[in-house]
């Protein structure tokens, strides 16, 4: 998948989880800036993204992600 495709799919997940608008899901977005994106929901989010994209993250990747841009880069590389 290219970056645009990855983001298109991510919009839906972020909408479902946090009710975010498309324009809010930008590469610089971090968990601190999103209401409800706590450590539990982070794991739920990662599990959901794994199943939506058909990929598997390592626990290292899950725990060290800095922002949405980094997540998207991993997804572009894996899909």
């Amino acid at each position: 998948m290219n970056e645009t495709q990855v983001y298109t799919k991510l919009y839906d997940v972020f909408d479902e989880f946090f009710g975010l608008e498309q324009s809010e899901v930008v590469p610089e977005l971090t968990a601190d800036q999103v209401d409800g994106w706590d450590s539990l929901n982070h794991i739920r989010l990662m599990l959901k993204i794994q199943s939506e994209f058909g990929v598997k993250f390592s626990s290292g990747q899950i725990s060290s992600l800095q922002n949405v841009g980094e997540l998207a880069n991993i997804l572009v590389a894996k899909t």
Partner: protein
Amino acid sequence: MSTSLYLDLEWLPKPPADISARFKALRAQSAQSGAELRHLAGFGLSELQLTRLASALDRAIETGADLSPLAPLKVAVVSNTTTEFLNPVIAATGLRHGFALSVVPVPFGQVMQELLDPASSVYAADPDVILLALDHRGWPLAAAHGDAKEAEAALTGSLAQLDTIIASVEQNSRAVLMVQTVVRPADTDFGSLDLAVPGTWRRQVGAFNQALADRLAGTPHLLLDVAGIAETIGLANWHDPGMWHLARVSCANRVLPLYADHVGRVLAAWKGKARRCLILDLDNTVWSGVIGDDGLDGIRLAEGDAVGEAHRDVQDRALQLRARGVVLAVSSKNDDAVARAAFRDHPDMLLREDHIAVFQANWRDKATNITAISDEISLGLDAMAFLDDNPAERGLVREALPTVAVPELPDDPALYVRTLIASGVFEATTFSEEDRRRADDYQSNAKRVALQASVTNIDDYLRSLDMVFTMRRFDATGRARIAQLISKSNQFNLTTRRYSEADITRMEADPTIFGMQVRLKDRFADNGMISVVICRSEGAEWDIDTWLMSCRVLGRGVERAVLQVLKDVAGKSGIKAITASYIPTARNQMVAAHYEGLGFEQTGTLPDGTTRWRIAVADIPEQVVHGEVTVEVDTPGRRQSEQAGRSNTDAVSVPSVT
């Protein structure tokens, strides 16, 4: 064979496509109803969906909403592992089992402090149930490999700890303990040798679980065998090492819905909400085939026949459940005498009439029959489970009687028993001599009971089925199936005239014959070709030579859709009247009043009992059809086709081709 049956709770209906929107709507709604929440929990929801449902439930409990008929229940989950993912899933799953369940938050890893200190937050919350959810790391079970003494001491120590916990809970609260068995790690110590060397996880966990079950037997406390669940789906699916390292969770999030459903079942059984009566459909459930059409010799249930054996397994399992105290009943769309003949005379039947408390074989809707069964044996509808291969029957019962447990069934009858058992509707927390005798106490005499007025608005249900009828003239594509229906149908068959494929081929080209094949699709399934009608023109009249239908789609208004099309096509073809015959046989009693019901007038009775009927085309009323009718009727020589459809419930008038 896959584990998805269990992990995706496939005995529950799949969530509707708009489930996300429904959750969003719930969030916006100020007042929640218990029935609505329970309805949503009745689908096979994922962990995330259950978590979302749990927040709606939480809000409802917080705001003091009236959630009846759900029973309030407070559960504290005490664990050496993180339970934050599990807790909301348990709460939402509780809805499915009739509870408005709140989970008391307990600090992670504080097992003994919380349970031994009378002033702990667990006891302060005054829960009804304390779920002791310890994994293999939570009991002092580890021992040096090969050291039998140490292994024994570790086991004794763990059980002593259990005794201490039980004593403390009994002293400090009114709560009932639910203790889970230990799931052994997926990774072996040696391999096959694990079973032989003292101190291995395999031996320690096995011995502990058995001792735990023995300890709890005869006490008011409950056993939750998660080790059994993990075995069923596989240890490799249960354990997720990554998640342990990330968040100290004991099992993969993917298994949480199943885990929680088992918690819900045990709670329900404990509160007397487990099912106590199994209502069986007959055709294609208890045996393969349709006895009314295939005959006593035509149904399959013999050893050595793979399909027959699958259905025989259903019977075998029904008898095992009966031996456990589950009452058996029958609800079947059949002629009573024909259905009973199998129970009396078929050599391969395991079930006999005296196993069945109430035997309802008739042509009424099953919701009405199930209500009659419930009244007769004085067990509530919430004590009933209904097993039927036909998705539309299941859908009707689920909609009309939402408290009846209706497991979804897969296409393959070999998996019927597995699915029924996986659903856990007959979970028990005790088993006694009394249970063993219970089924006999229900005077199993295959009684047939009178039906009250229909319990359900069938029209609403039919509308919700999204039925699409497709009518076509006889053609090469349909030929084989038309001939098969003509040779097999005995019950809904007005004249029982048999025609071969060659006969059908000739009819296709015969301008004096109007042959129509009817297909039916609904939201559950494509039922394929389900009805055949043959009209022979005699001047300005049609005589209905053949009208038959598969009993599988009985009660759906197929005959009304057919009549509407006959009226329209006849009208356009200059036909003024339609005549018809009902030729009685041993099997087609059910359609004796077919033409009368459709508004035909009887014109005579022949010596052999055949009744003759007639109606003027202009007198045929517009038919109410709950679905869309597509007509692909083309006249021979002028190949045209036209499609028309309407999806409302007004009378459908069908444009036809001249």
